[in-house]
């Protein structure tokens, strides 16, 4: 894909879109892969005071290059504070102290509930996925959650095989009934566009498409009849500054072969 001079990939568009939604002066609970890329990109461009908390215990980490794992040495070396893993979850995540949680997904449904546990039956799985990790409590406790996931009919499904992390549950009021105190997923950022929950129904609505993507591309990649916002916008393409910085960050990493 090309635009504004430099050509870029859909993965790059997704990373840039994810970086843009991170506001300066907030705190962000960062998982590895795209969330870490997005958070560090934001920190370099428009959010120098974004506090990054890695579940490995690095609080206020300022890595110069992207770590391969959430536990690379560069995180502890550049952190304001290093704390134990129980402390991360108990003192920092659980009380709702962290503004933004980033999550990935193997499956996501129309209410932004997430499966990262298993494809197929739990007892006789077709694909055994890594499991919950920090996700259920990130989804529960961060003030809001951004989900970053490639959009296709394997990931955007009518029915999850397993609910690992709760988005908007079965719709309005579900989170409150469950005692989940954060706002839940407020944005789902994909390689095709951005979806946000409808405040009345809790269901995801397509609010932005990335340059070159049209609504039918999104419909074809979604396992349910996706709602589309009346004022659907087109995401601005990555700027030269964004792309340049993103590539500089990634080139300085032992890049993962897959996430």
């Amino acid at each position, binding site marked *: 894909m090309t635009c504004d001079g430099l050509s870029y990939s859909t993965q790059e568009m997704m990373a840039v879109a994810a970086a843009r939604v991170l506001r300066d002066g907030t705190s962000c609970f960062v998982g*590895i*892969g795209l969330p870490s890329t997005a958070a560090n990109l934001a920190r370099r461009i428009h959010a120098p005071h974004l506090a990054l908390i890695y*579940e*490995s*215990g*690095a609080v206020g980490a300022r890595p110069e290059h992207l*770590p*391969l*794992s*959430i*536990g*690379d*040495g560069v*995180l*502890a*070396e550049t952190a304001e504070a*290093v*704390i*134990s*893993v*129980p402390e*991360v*979850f*108990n003192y920092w*995540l*659980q009380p709702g102290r962290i503004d933004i949680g980033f999550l990935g997904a193997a499956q996501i449904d129309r209410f932004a509930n997430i499966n990262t*546990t298993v494809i197929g039956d*739990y007892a006789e*799985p*077709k*694909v*055994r996925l*890594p*499991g*919950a*990790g*920090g*996700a*259920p*409590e990130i989804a*529960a*406790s961060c003030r809001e959650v951004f989900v970053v996931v490639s959009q296709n009919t394997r990931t955007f499904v009518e029915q999850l095989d*397993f*609910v*690992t*992390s*709760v988005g908007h*549950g079965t719709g309005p009021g*579900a*989170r409150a009934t*469950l*005692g*989940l*105190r954060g706002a839940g997923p407020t944005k789902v950022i994909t390689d095709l566009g951005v979806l946000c929950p409808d405040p009345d129904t809790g269901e995801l609505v397509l609010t932005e498409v990335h340059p070159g993507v049209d609504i039918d591309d999104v419909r074809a990649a979604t396992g349910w009849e996706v709602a589309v916002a009346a004022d659907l916008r087109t995401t601005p393409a990555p700027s030269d500054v964004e792309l340049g910085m993103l590539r500089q960050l990634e080139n300085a990493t*032992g890049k*993962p*072969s*897959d*996430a």
Partner: protein
Amino acid sequence: MAELVSLGEAVQEAVHDGDTVALEGFTHLIPVAAGREIIRRGLRDLTLVRMTPDIVYDQLIGAGCARKLVFSWGGNPGVGSLHRFRDAVENGWPVPLELEEHSHAGMANRYVAGASGLPFAVLRGYAGTDLPSVTSTIKQVTCPFTGEQLAAVPALNPDVAIVHAQRADRSGNVQLWGLIGVQKEAVLAASRSIVTVEEVVDELTPMPGAVVLPGWALGYVAEVPGGAHPSYAQGYSERDNAHYQSWDAISRDRESFDAWLRQKVFA
């Protein structure tokens, strides 16, 4: 009181068939050499406990040491799947693997309860997820003051905890720094413990961010330089990201894994 011994002696004394064994280290300081020693000694029917069963548990599971895994995230961090773990769960190879799975918050709190001599821990967790339907060790408890319902998880008290650290002194006091994970909790929760260290020194110079485990609270300390590889020991080594990436190919099929076992563990 900690005994300074070889890794072989430590594993022989502390780990037995059927034990519940926790190897901890959150990305950093993973006791990988101790895991290989367990494979080498042919231990069987272990219940393996670990928040993030990465390469070290992929090896133990592929070698047939484990009957059960208690965990919260089973992947090759930054790379992808753990193929031996998946083969055991999806196909029961080489032996079926029972799973008891939690979230990180749940596992961390289970260790905290274990280290604290409490039978259970309370957390805000699991609400609305399918985890309680597949994991019997997730229940609810009511706050006696507010009436709120919260999640309860039972303490983890492994028979043995094994961790890696930067160094120990000759009295067996252990010092670790950098990302400290859940190691202190795992060691204090366990009946027995093994700590492998990069080096044994005369004196533990204080270090920023260091945790010290007093020797009188430990079991066995073994000097195993590089014992965390391909994980790392801050101040001694770097994470060998290339090795994590190469594990993907080694572990992807049974033959290449068996060849690795023969050449790297049993040779």
